[in-house]
């Protein structure tokens, strides 16, 4: 069992840096996708990029998405709704900070935690 992790930030740099931190912690054993920036590359988020990141991290054990602020969440929800039902039900958005939550979630996923475990870990252990 290895849940995949998706990082969605307004900033491409934040997304990349958080992904580096995840990789440092769990290596390549956890499926990971990340994206940041609006469709033009400026600060914002893009449904298309989010869909690609979900695809890159896809795991049948589920996907935990970490987002930063408002639009990242709304756009991630929109992206999820565009997926077929059998994928949709395997994706959760964590109510956790994007960087700290991604590291926590990935650590739990690496240890073999279920999607619910991964979400709970990100939401509980992250600094408030």
């Amino acid at each position, binding site marked *: 069992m290895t849940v995949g992790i998706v990082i969605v930030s307004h900033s491409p740099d934040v997304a990349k840096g958080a992904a580096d931190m995840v990789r440092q912690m769990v290596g390549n054993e956890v499926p990971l996708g990340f994206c940041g*920036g*609006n*469709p*033009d590359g*400026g*600060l*914002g*988020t*893009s*449904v*298309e990029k989010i869909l690609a990141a979900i695809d890159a991290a896809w795991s049948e054990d589920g996907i935990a998405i970490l987002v930063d*602020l*408002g*639009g990242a969440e*709304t*756009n991630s*929800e*929109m992206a999820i709704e565009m997926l077929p039902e059998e994928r949709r039900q395997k994706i959760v958005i964590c109510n956790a900070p994007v960087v700290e939550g991604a590291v926590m979630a990935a650590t739990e996923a690496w240890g073999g935690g279920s999607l619910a475990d991964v979400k709970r870990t990100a939401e509980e252990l992250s600094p408030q």
Partner: protein
Amino acid sequence: MALPLETLLDTVSARIISAADELTALDSAIGDADHGLNMKRGFEAVQADKAGIFAKPPGEALKAVGMTLVMKVGGASGPLYGTLFMTLGKELPENPSVADLGRALQASVTALKARGKADIGNKTMLDVLGPVAAHLESGSASIESVRALATESAKATIPMKAIRGRASFLGDRSIGHMDPGARSSEIMITAVCDVLEGKP
């Protein structure tokens, strides 16, 4: 009435695109200074896609507009306005009455509330779209009254405290500024009124 969809869309697009700086300035006061840029990106993409969009029947065309906004806007307003257009496309009958318009807009408002986890009074676009939908549904709406209500509702967001979106980070300091999304909604509704009145 048969809706002049293409003219409506062209006018809405043109008005939003030319108001981009104003919308960005409003967002700069209580947000991240990108609402105009976002909306411009979205409606430019709609215009670029016009041939594909109007190859479809009206309902599907509206859904395609919504999908383009979802994919291109890049801010919270993308999924929100996208949901608005997609719901309109689903709900509007072929030759809608004013009451049909009201019902469809009301359905959009309901979908938008769910999408944004927001409600009327949170200082968002809902504070324009909600009252206008209710007014259209009431049966007593005229083009004049809709236009006036949209303008008044956008202005009414000035004294509100933001509860949703970036402006909510400002807490009480969001008071005293018009919500950028309320203003873009006002612009779109005004554009529709102008077209329906024959003055685009």
